[in-house]
């Protein structure tokens, strides 16, 4: 479950604090829910996903992710929560010196899964995103679309309880975008809470669902 109560976010702190990019957000996403996250560029979609990914902490307000209050959590309490969250970054954030296989394996190895299970799960996942033949390639040797699929595989391979995706279809053709939506919906059907930021209107039209609409860091409640 995700709940925000009066959550504001400023980047930087103290004298170097920037302007607030998210203002007093109140919203709830039930466990197993699906949400589109929509809004023009610069609205704060990525910033909101960063909050949910526990990459930044709220400047003000109460943030509950996977049932834990994040504002009051110690640093040591966050890693186990992060291991239950998968995120597809807009800029992929793959490790350049690792093969596609090792990039996808990373969350499982960090979580300390047995290597046998890692091999089986990663192989299966790469097959699913159609990259079995590229599993030894470094990100630099992959096309933008292939890198995006590696990033998706890495986000999903640990069967996260909360799955976040930031413009995940930006580098995919329509067929691949449809495939990705099938995967996200399947994860959602299996119980994961899913939030997908996009400004791909056609995609939203093909897969209608509840949306969080942001504009200039505020919720638009015309939805």
């Amino acid at each position, binding site marked *: 479950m995700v709940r925000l109560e009066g959550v504001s976010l400023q980047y930087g702190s103290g004298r170097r604090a920037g302007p607030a990019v998210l203002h007093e957000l109140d919203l709830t996403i039930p466990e197993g829910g699906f949400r589109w996250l929509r809004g023009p560029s610069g609205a704060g979609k990525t910033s909101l996903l960063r909050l949910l*990914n*526990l*990459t*930044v*902490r709220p400047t003000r307000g109460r943030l509950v992710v996977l049932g834990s209050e994040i504002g009051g959590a110690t*640093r*040591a309490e*966050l*890693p*186990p*929560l*992060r*291991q*239950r*969250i998968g*995120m597809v970054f807009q800029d992929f*954030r793959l*490790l350049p*010196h*690792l093969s596609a296989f*090792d990039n996808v394996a*990373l*969350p499982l*190895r*960090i*979580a300390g899964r*047995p*290597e*046998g299970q890692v*091999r089986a799960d990663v192989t299966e996942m790469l097959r699913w995103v159609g990259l079995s033949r590229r599993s030894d390639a470094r990100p630099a040797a992959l096309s933008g679309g292939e890198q995006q699929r590696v990033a998706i595989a*890495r986000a999903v391979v640990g069967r996260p309880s909360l799955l976040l995706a930031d413009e995940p279809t930006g580098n995919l053709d329509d067929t691949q975008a449809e495939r990705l939506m099938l995967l996200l919906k399947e994860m959602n059907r299996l119980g994961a809470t899913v939030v997908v930021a996009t400004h791909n209107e056609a995609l939203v039209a093909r897969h209608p669902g509840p949306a969080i609409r942001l504009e200039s860091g505020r919720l638009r409640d015309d939805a």
Partner: protein
Amino acid sequence: MPERARRLRPARFDDLGLRRALGDRMLPLLVAAMAFLAALALAGSAGAAALVRHWQEGAAAALTVQVPAPGDAAAGGTGTRLDAVLALLRAVPGIGDAHALSSAELGALLRPWLGDAAGDPALPLPAVIAVRMAAAAPDLTALGARLGAAAPGTLVESQGVWVERLTRLARSLQACAWLVLAVVAGVAAAVVAVGTRAGLAARREAIEIVHGLGATDGYVARRFARRTTALAALGALLGTLAALPVLAALAVMVAPFAGKPDAATVPAELALGLPALPVIAALIGWLTAQATVRRWLRRLP
């Protein structure tokens, strides 16, 4: 067995890319230089300790007693003054052997100062008794008083004063050596800290990604510490090995002073200390990297 093998992480899995970020040349090289210095300091300390031990044993074990006019009659009446003093000395508990130097021995001892006159029997030389102690030295003042009663003018001398001065000098050298060791350990820690910080800066992005995927501080710190530990241990091993020929040469030069003509004997401090250097370097590498990385990670949420 296969089950176990499958559980192991692939040996070459280097998620933070530290093989390139934590230099495998500079760090071991600097630590090798530190270990080289540490080995020399350790040898200095061990050498000084060995000399002190040797001198103290010698000093505790030896007295010289001078009896002027040894052939005259003793105060007690029976025999010569020399005989009386010898008899008294041999009766003191703890004295292993008291032996009056023959005039030939005495002559040989004095020849450097007196030339051929040293052999002249007409020269009024005192008798010199070399005393070896079997146990701790007795109270020298009391002993001197008793010997003086039997043969007035008798002098009892321990070799203690000189040994005490030399011992103090050697102990200061030893303290210096320990100081050098402490400074070297500090510099080694600083070298590891600087290397680790450079690695952190070079791998900031990878660390942030791994952190975001749920890696604990311990996970990241362990990766750095594993690498610095290996590099520091390797460097220290090389440095220690490089110091061995130097130490062997020193040992040969020191051996005669320590009364050990065979240079083969290695002081226990060295035998234990030298193999400990790579272990201590590894420990410094591990602790420093852990502390540096954990401190750095506190900037991440």
